[in-house]
């Protein structure tokens, strides 16, 4: 009989001197409708916390989510939920929409009823990670939220005189019952979303 009994297989290094973590995230992320992702064709890397390929269905595209503030995605966190037989993780993402109007109201309504995946870039001393392994292995800065069970709206608040949101919207999305503490993307994968080549017949040179 097998039990879910994971074993530690490496040292726990609290501080890596050549890769000290910097708090926060970059201002631009990507948001996907989870139904636009072809999860059947997802491929993982050295461990299954790293996604190397995650195609979109034909005709679908990701959307940018931009947080023009000094503390983008402030309020984003991951918490372990300790159960009797298993521990899961709850991922919480906060987005501020510094605006209001019919267009924004429509976006908030879509966020209220949809299921989403967000890719967010963690700030890190080890930029463009994945190419220069640290003593503990590669570090990937782009992180996916919502891959396992989707991000759903937990709250959306608009306060007319709120100094932080300036009468915009504070939207909180959560993913519950996730098995993984963090799922990451390679830089090449994110680049394929950000910089798709538009020319289907891009010339290539072959030396003869």
């Amino acid at each position, binding site marked *: 009989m097998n039990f879910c009994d994971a074993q530690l297989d490496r040292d726990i290094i609290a501080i890596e001197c050549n890769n000290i973590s910097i708090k926060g995230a970059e201002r631009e992320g990507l948001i996907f409708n989870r139904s636009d*992702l072809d999860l059947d064709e997802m491929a993982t890397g050295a461990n299954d916390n790293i996604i190397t390929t995650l*195609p979109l269905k034909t005709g679908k595209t990701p959307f940018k989510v931009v947080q023009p503030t000094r503390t983008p995605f402030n309020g984003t966190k991951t918490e372990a939920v300790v159960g009797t037989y298993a521990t899961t993780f709850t991922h919480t993402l906060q987005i501020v929409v510094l605006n209001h109007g019919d267009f924004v109201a429509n976006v908030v309504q879509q966020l209220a009823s949809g299921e989403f995946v967000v890719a967010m870039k963690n700030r890190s001393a080890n930029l463009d990670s994945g190419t220069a392994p640290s003593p503990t292995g590669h570090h990937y800065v782009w992180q996916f939220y919502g891959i396992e069970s989707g991000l759903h709206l937990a709250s959306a608040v608009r306060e007319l005189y709120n100094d932080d949101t300036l009468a915009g919207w504070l939207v909180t999305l959560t993913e519950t019952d996730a098995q993984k503490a963090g799922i990451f993307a390679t830089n090449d994968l994110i*680049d*394929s979303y950000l910089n798709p*080549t538009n020319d289907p017949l891009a010339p*290539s040179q*072959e030396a003869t």
Partner: protein
Amino acid sequence: MDKITKTKARLRMGCVLYHVKGFNGIYTNANLTDDVARAFLEQRPDKERWFETLPDPAPADTEPAKPVEPASDVNENTEPAQPVETTPKKRGRKPKK
């Protein structure tokens, strides 16, 4: 001289090729060639869905050049070469017309 060829193969957004046999590197639409695409599909024929456009089939191999037989001085099927007779040039005055 570099030969410019158009790449027909095109990956779907979000697809990246790793560890393609016979090629080094990581491939996206920015650097994909039909040769890489064909090599990948040979390894992973179940991944045609990763492609928006499949590559053209590999070009037919040209027939290898037939080895050129070295010229032989001895040929059993022909008579031995006859010495060519040449008349020595005469030196002298031109004949009158």
